[in-house]
C-alpha cells in the first residue's frame, strides 16, 4: 500500500539521518562509559599492557587522603559559585528586561567574558589577583581596604576562583532573558486587573514563570562547576594552588591519569565524580517538584 511504503521510506531516511549521532554515541559515549567502568578494576599505565587489579583501585580510593580534600574543594567552589551565579544572572536579566535603552550593548558587555578563551581569562585574572601589582588590590585600595593575597593565600584562593566564575554570569543571564521574554503579557495584564502592584506581579507572575529557567541554570551550573579544571590548571600550573587549596577534583584526576599514568585509578575517580554529580542532579530533580512551576500545556519535549 502506498501509505505504508511512504512510512517505510520515511523510517529508513530517519535512521540514516540519525546514523551520525547513533554511531557517535556508541563510539564516543556509550563505549567509553562501559570501558571506563571496566578500567576501574584494572591497572593500566598505557606504557605497559593492562593488568587485572580487582578491587585494588577502589580500596585505594577509600583511603586516599586527597579524595575528600579534592571533593571538598570542588564542593566549596560549586556551592558558592553556582547560587551566586544564578542569582546575579537573574537579577541582571530582570534589570535588562525592564526596557531600558542600550539593552543590546549591556547584554553584549555582560556576555563578553563567556566568549573569552578560558586560558586568556585565567591568565588575566591571575594577573588581576596579583598581590603586588594586580587590579583587585587596586580596586580594594579605592575603598580603603587592605590588600589581600588572593590566589597565594589558601584562605582566599577558592574565593578568587569564585569571583572569576561570577565574571561569566552572562551565560546564565541570556537564558533568563529568553525566559523572561517568553512570559505572556496577558498574565501581567490579568494580574494588574486584579489589583496587583509591581511587587505582587513580580512575586506571583514573573518569579513562578521563571522557575524552570532557574532550575535549568542550577542543574547545568552544578554539573559544570563540579568539573572545573582549565582555569585551575593554568593558574596553579597544574599544582592545585597554595597547600592544595585549589586542588579541584578534575585536576586531581588529570594528574593521576596524565602525569602518574594510573588510568585505572583515574577511571575510578571519574566514576566517583560522575556518581556525585548524578546524585546532586537527581536531588535537584526531586526537589524541583516542590518549587518549579510548569505551565500545563506547554507542549513539552518529544
Amino acid at each position: 500500500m502506498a501509505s505504508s511504503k511512504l512510512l517505510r521510506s520515511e523510517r529508513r531516511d530517519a535512521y540514516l539521518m540519525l546514523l551520525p549521532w547513533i554511531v557517535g554515541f556508541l563510539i564516543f559515549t556509550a563505549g567509553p562509559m562501559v570501558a571506563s567502568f571496566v578500567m576501574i578494576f584494572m591497572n593500566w599505565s598505557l606504557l605497559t599492557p593492562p593488568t587485572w587489579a580487582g578491587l585494588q583501585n577502589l580500596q585505594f580510593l577509600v583511603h586516599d587522603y586527597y579524595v575528600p580534600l579534592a571533593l571538598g574543594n570542588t564542593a566549596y567552589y560549586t556551592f558558592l559559585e553556582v547560587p551566586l551565579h544564578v542569582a546575579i544572572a537573574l537579577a541582571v536579566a530582570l534589570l535588562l528586561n525592564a526596557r531600558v535603552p542600550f539593552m543590546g550593548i549591556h547584554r553584549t558587555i555582560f556576555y563578553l567574558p563567556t566568549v573569552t578563551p578560558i586560558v586568556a581569562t585565567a591568565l588575566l585574572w591571575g594577573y588581576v589577583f596579583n598581590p603586588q601589582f594586580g587590579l583587585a588590590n587596586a580596586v580594594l585600595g579605592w575603598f580603603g581596604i587592605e590588600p589581600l593575597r588572593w590566589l597565594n593565600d589558601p584562605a582566599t584562593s577558592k574565593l578568587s576562583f569564585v569571583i572569576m566564575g561570577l565574571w561569566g554570569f552572562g551565560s546564565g543571564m541570556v537564558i533568563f532573558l529568553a525566559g523572561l521574554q517568553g512570559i505572556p503579557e496577558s498574565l501581567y495584564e490579568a494580574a494588574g486587573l486584579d489589583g496587583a502592584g509591581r511587587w505582587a506581579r513580580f512575586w506571583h507572575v514573573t518569579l513562578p514563570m521563571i522557575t524552570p529557567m532557574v532550575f535549568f541554570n542550577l542543574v547545568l551550573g552544578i554539573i559544570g562547576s563540579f568539573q572545573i579544571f582549565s582555569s585551575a590548571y593554568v593558574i596553579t600550573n597544574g599544582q592545585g594552588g597554595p597547600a592544595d587549596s585549589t586542588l579541584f577534583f578534575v585536576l586531581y584526576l588529570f594528574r593521576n591519569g596524565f602525569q602518574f599514568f594510573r588510568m585505572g585509578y583515574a577511571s575510578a575517580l571519574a566514576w566517583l565524580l560522575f556518581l556525585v554529580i548524578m546524585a546532586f542532579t537527581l536531588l535537584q530533580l526531586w526537589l524541583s517538584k516542590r518549587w518549579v512551576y510548569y505551565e500545563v500545556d506547554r507542549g513539552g519535549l518529544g
Partner: protein
Amino acid sequence: MANQVLDRRVVTFGSAAAHGTRLGARRAEVRRVLRTIAIELVLLVLGIGMLLPFLWLITGSVKSEAQVFAWPPVWLPSPVQWENYPKALTILPFATFFRNTIFIAVLATAGTVVSSSLVAFAFARLRFPGRGPLFLLVLATMMLPGIVTMIPRFILFKHLGWVDTLRPLWVPDFFGSSFSIFLLRQFFLTLPVEMDEAARIDGASNWRIWATIAVPLSVPAVTTVAVFAFINSWNDFMGPLIYLNSMDKRTVSLGLAAFTGIYSAEYNLMMAASVSALLPVLAVFFFAQRLFVKGIVLSGMGGR
C-alpha cells in the same frame, strides 16, 4: 469605575489612574522615568565593572616591563609599547598555533552544523519508532559530565594513532552535538509543514527537503549553532592539552598557557598574546551577535 481600555499605563499605575486625574498620570510617568534612570545607572556601573578586567588586559598589553610592575597601577601606559605584540607572538610560534586553531575550529563548526542539522531534522520532521525515547537520550547526553568518557576516548585515539594529531579535536564533531541537535530540532519544529508537503508533492526526498528548505530557512538557529561550535572549539583547552604534544601541532590555548611557565613574569607579553587570541573570537561573536542571541531566545522559548 469600570475601565474598558486595557491600557498598559492604566494597569501599571492603577492607583494614580483611578483618580482619573492628569496630574496622577504625569506623576506616575515621572516615577517611571526615574526608575529607568536608576536601572540604567546600575547597569552602567555593573558594565564598567565587567569591562575593567578587559581594560586592564588591553592597557597591560602595551606596557613596558617597568610599568607592568608599577604600584599604584598605571592606567595610561607611556610609552605605548606596541612592540609587545610582535614580540609575544614570535617568542612562541603563534602563527602555527593560529593556523592549527583555525583549521580545527572551521572543521569542528562545519561538522557540527551538518551532522546536527541532519539529526535534528529527523527528530523534527520524520516519524519513526523510538523517536521520543531516543530524543530523551540525546538530552541526557547533554548533561553527561565529560570526565567519565575522557580517558577511554584518549585510549581510543591512542590506538588509532591519532594522539599528537589534530583529528581528535574535530572528528567527533561530525557525529552531532547534543546541544546543537536540541536547538535545531526546536527551531525546525517552528517551520511550517506546508512547505515540506509542497516539496514532497513535487517529488523531493527528505534529504532534498533538509538541504533546500529546512536549513536555509533556519539561518538564526544555524548561525547560533555555528558560532557556539566555533567559539567552543577555539576556546578549548583541555582537549588540546591532552592530545597535542609537538610544538607544530599546538593550538593558541596551549600557546597562551605556556606563558605560565618560562615567561610567567612577562605579564605584558602574556597580555598581548591574550588579546591576540581574543580578537578572532570576539570578531566572530560580534559579527553574528544579533542572530546569536535570537537563537538562544528561540531555544529558550521552544518547548519549555
